[in-house]
């Protein structure tokens, strides 16, 4: 298990080069989140604030729960904070399991919990405005399926 919270960019290729190696692993799923541009008012920066200390603790707990529930052979969570530009990577998760359903479900679980239970907050800065992104009801509702 590897949990990384950092300001600088990361290489998804390097992070996953040795990920999930083992005789028992038949399936690896990765998810990467990227800063999208805004259609009408071009995004200058996506600023991500976090709660140092609690962030690592929350991500570790979420990863441990996913590992136990889906019998994962490996799990990786990387999340950045600070000021990001459109097209930059925000975060990634990876899961390694025996079968594909385990790897897919665990990755979706990680994303759903990370989105609503890890202390990150996004602010969208454009030429015209700087607004904190509102949490969506659908993100909270997504937790009900687990």
């Amino acid at each position, binding site marked *: 298990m590897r949990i990384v919270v950092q300001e600088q960019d990361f290489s998804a290729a390097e992070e996953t080069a040795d990920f999930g190696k083992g005789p028992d692993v038949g399936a690896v799923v990765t998810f990467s989140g990227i800063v999208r541009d805004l259609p009408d008012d071009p995004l200058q920066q996506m600023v991500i*604030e976090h709660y140092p200390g*609690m962030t690592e603790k*929350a991500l570790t707990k979420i990863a441990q729960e996913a590992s136990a529930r889906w019998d994962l052979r490996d799990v990786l969570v990387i999340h950045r904070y600070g000021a990001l530009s459109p097209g930059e990577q925000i*975060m990634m998760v990876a899961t390694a399991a025996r079968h594909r359903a385990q790897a897919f479900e665990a990755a979706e679980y990680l994303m759903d919990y*990370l989105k609503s239970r890890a202390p990150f907050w996004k602010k969208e800065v454009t030429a015209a405005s700087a607004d904190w992104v509102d949490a969506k009801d659908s993100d909270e509702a997504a937790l009900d399926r687990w």
Partner: protein
Amino acid sequence: MKIEVLYFAWLRERIGLPRETVETEAATVADLVAELSAREDRYAVAFSDMSAIRAAVDQDLVPLDTALSGAREVAFFPPMTGG
């Protein structure tokens, strides 16, 4: 007791500081919010809609009726928007 109180995102911006040490006898997180809100308008405004506020005690997300006994650090913030 002395408690470290932290604010994040728009709560931090409205209150105007990221953290402060508070001397309080509040029994619960909700009591602490009431105490802070009574102190100054900027707190009252920031905490006006508690359905939009989440709290953590010693870095664990908790309900607002959680007891503060023994707590060293309490944080307030809006719903998270990571990922």
